[in-house]
């Protein structure tokens, strides 16, 4: 072996070893920093989070938090993969308590009861949110934002046509028919780019047409998704699609995304849009006059449901990685995010993001916060007409079925009854396996 060959062989061996070692390391945890993955709607939102929460926490923390920003639509899947690989950060993101419960059942996250006691989370968090975050009677995650589904509209467009925000099915149909006649898309919708958008619509319709009482019965195993009320609700959506009321028809449904719906509202080509309260910020950014958009509670879509139902939703829940070497610091950071209402509302005021499910009084809202946000978060605590968002209260596989198979209802490939039969089968499996969460009891049934 000559000298050159020996050198090349040695370099090859070193490079291979280095590559192998690189492959074996990941984005995992070190004991010096607290790791956290965040995802945001806009750079401004990210900046506000960084300044208020990350920089604020790090100012006094012994173990500083190191935030890694991910794509909002994929952070859930990224986290799933990282958790499976044992490479998740110290503070684990989940798309809500339902996803977080899977991590807890698999022993990938720790019980938080000790920290709940230390930081007084049980008293600070709203009871329904606290109870929902339990698995086997132990707190498994902490919700960091809650909101609801509402009906958005353009005030100028409604004034121009003499419409008022509908509160009943007949009022909704009157506005929709009038909008269609005027050449507008009556109701925005679609799932282009993010199939999960379908469950926003389904959450709104199921709560407004079937009602929280019946949904509670299904979620607790006392009723079935195949019951006539559910079939009627899905048939109602299908009729909107067939009439071209929803998204302009079935084909447009698959090529319309959230931005297009909000833009449609802003430029007056779409009359109404049922979406989540996380869109407050987007509305203000897209509307030329930010004062021109308005929200209204969902209209009642059947005689069985009172107008103005608010499906409660938790979009983000945080847990602590079982393998974390910084569990105490992780709990401290989570408390920094949710434990102080003033700090949380400062973030909401700057970004329009939903605040944590804390007991907030009207006088706590900062002066600069959007008044529509104040209206929402004072209306929800005052009403008993609250329901269940699918991504928060449905178990994961049932929720996945709800989203993916709805496409076939839109195209007419399956009937409402067949779709709901499959939904019931998916739910029954998870219910039998004990993978469902405990929904809050509807008012009047305690």
């Amino acid at each position: 072996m000559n000298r050159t060959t020996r050198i090349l062989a040695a370099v090859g061996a070193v490079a291979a070893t280095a590559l192998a070692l690189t492959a074996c390391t990941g984005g995992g945890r070190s004991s010096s920093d607290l790791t956290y993955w965040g995802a945001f709607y806009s750079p401004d939102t990210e900046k506000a989070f960084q300044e208020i929460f990350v920089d604020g926490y790090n100012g006094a923390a012994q173990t500083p938090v190191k935030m890694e920003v991910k794509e909002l639509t994929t952070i859930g899947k990224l986290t799933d993969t990282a958790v499976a690989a044992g490479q998740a950060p110290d503070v684990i993101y989940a798309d809500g308590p339902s996803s977080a419960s899977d991590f807890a059942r698999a022993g990938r996250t720790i019980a938080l009861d000790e920290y709940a006691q230390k930081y007084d989370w049980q008293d600070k968090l709203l009871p329904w949110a606290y109870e929902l975050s339990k698995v086997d009677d132990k707190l498994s995650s902490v919700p960091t934002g809650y909101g609801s589904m509402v009906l958005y509209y353009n005030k100028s467009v409604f004034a121009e046509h003499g419409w008022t925000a509908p509160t009943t099915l007949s009022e909704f149909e009157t506005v929709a028919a009038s909008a269609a006649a005027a050449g507008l898309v009556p109701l925005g919708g679609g799932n282009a780019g993010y199939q999960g958008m379908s469950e926003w619509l389904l959450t709104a319709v199921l709560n407004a047409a079937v009602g929280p009482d019946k949904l509670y019965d299904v979620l607790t195993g006392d009723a079935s998704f195949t019951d006539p009320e559910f079939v009627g609700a899905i048939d109602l959506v299908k009729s909107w699609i067939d009439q071209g009321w929803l998204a302009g028809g079935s084909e447009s449904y698959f090529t319309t995304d959230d931005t297009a719906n909000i833009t449609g509202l802003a430029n007056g080509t779409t009359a109404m849009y049922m979406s989540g309260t996380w869109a407050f910020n987007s509305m203000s950014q897209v509307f030329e006059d930010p004062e021109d958009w308005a929200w209204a509670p969902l209209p009642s879509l059947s005689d069985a449901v009172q107008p103005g139902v608010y499906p409660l939703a938790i979009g983000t829940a945080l847990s602590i990685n079982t393998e974390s070497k910084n569990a105490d610091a992780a709990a401290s950071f989570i408390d920094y995010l949710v434990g102080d209402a003033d700090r949380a509302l400062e973030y909401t005021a700057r970004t329009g993001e939903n605040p944590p499910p804390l007991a907030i009084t009207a006088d706590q809202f900062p002066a600069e916060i959007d008044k529509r946000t104040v209206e929402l978060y004072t209306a929800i605590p005052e009403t008993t007409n609250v329901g269940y968002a699918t991504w928060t209260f449905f178990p994961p596989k049932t929720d996945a079925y709800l989203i993916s198979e709805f496409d076939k209802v839109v195209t007419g490939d399956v009937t409402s009854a067949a779709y709901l039969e499959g939904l019931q089968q998916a739910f029954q499996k998870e219910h039998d396996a004990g993978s469902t969460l405990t929904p809050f009891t509807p008012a009047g049934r305690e």
Partner: protein
Amino acid sequence: MTITSPTSTRAGAAAPARRRGSALRRRRRLIAWAFVAPLLLVNLLVITGPGTASILLSFTDWDGLNSPSFVGLANYAELFTSAAVLNALWHNVIWTAFFLVVPMAMGLVGAFLLSRLRRGQMLFRVLFFIPYVLATVISAAIWRQIMDPDGGIGDALATIGIPFLADVNFLGNPSLALGSVAFVNTWQWWGFLLVIFLAAMQAVDPSLYEAAKLDGAGPVREFWSITLPAIRPTFVFLALMTIIWSFLVFDYIYVLTQGGPAGSTDVLSTVLYREAFENRRQGYASAVAMLLTSISAITVIGYLVLRRKLKWDV
């Protein structure tokens, strides 16, 4: 004093020589292994290891979080009776047939025409190759805009009095969606085929064309009788890779339609992705992966048969 015979002297000299030869061969083998070792290690880490794990996981119900349980052939039984998988497999077959015909034909004909250009050949090569170097997400986003029923090409044509595409929703109509995505992928892919075919054509002996011309052959005759047989190794290789890549297709479909509307653009890889990352069924997804691997393996075996049994020069 020992007197050795000439024979024993030769034997005595041959033994150290054999030892030296054996040591040299060992050293050469060691050097060869030293060079191959890094690649073997990488292969072990990123192909053999995960591949073996996938085979094992395909017999389990692993959800990615809890410990896997052995379920025997249950995943495979479900695989071959699942409407979603069979639908996706059929789309893969359609996709493969489309890509074996349309982009291959475009690449062949385009390369043949370009090969006859005296000037400007490089310009066209670059122009046709540019889509191939564009990131999938970017070209998919561009085509999504072009195909958008509101403000896309249909609207643009309608404004200049050509309304026949005005109401066509390329990606939203289940009957058109698969073809539309295949069209976009062809737009990106055919330029690559063209460049490879052109390179192969330029290696063909020019005297064959001169002889053909003397015999009165036209361009079409030259193409069928000289060009095509001469580039057969390249053609067969690209056809083989087209089949394998067609069954692995994922990116354009995921970015443009995510397998929708209602599964009308689903292929095996989108089903695999959905089962693994949305439904948390890594065990079942591994079985889908095994199906994909089997199809690729069958294709490669077919290639080897062509090489060895039929003595094809490919």
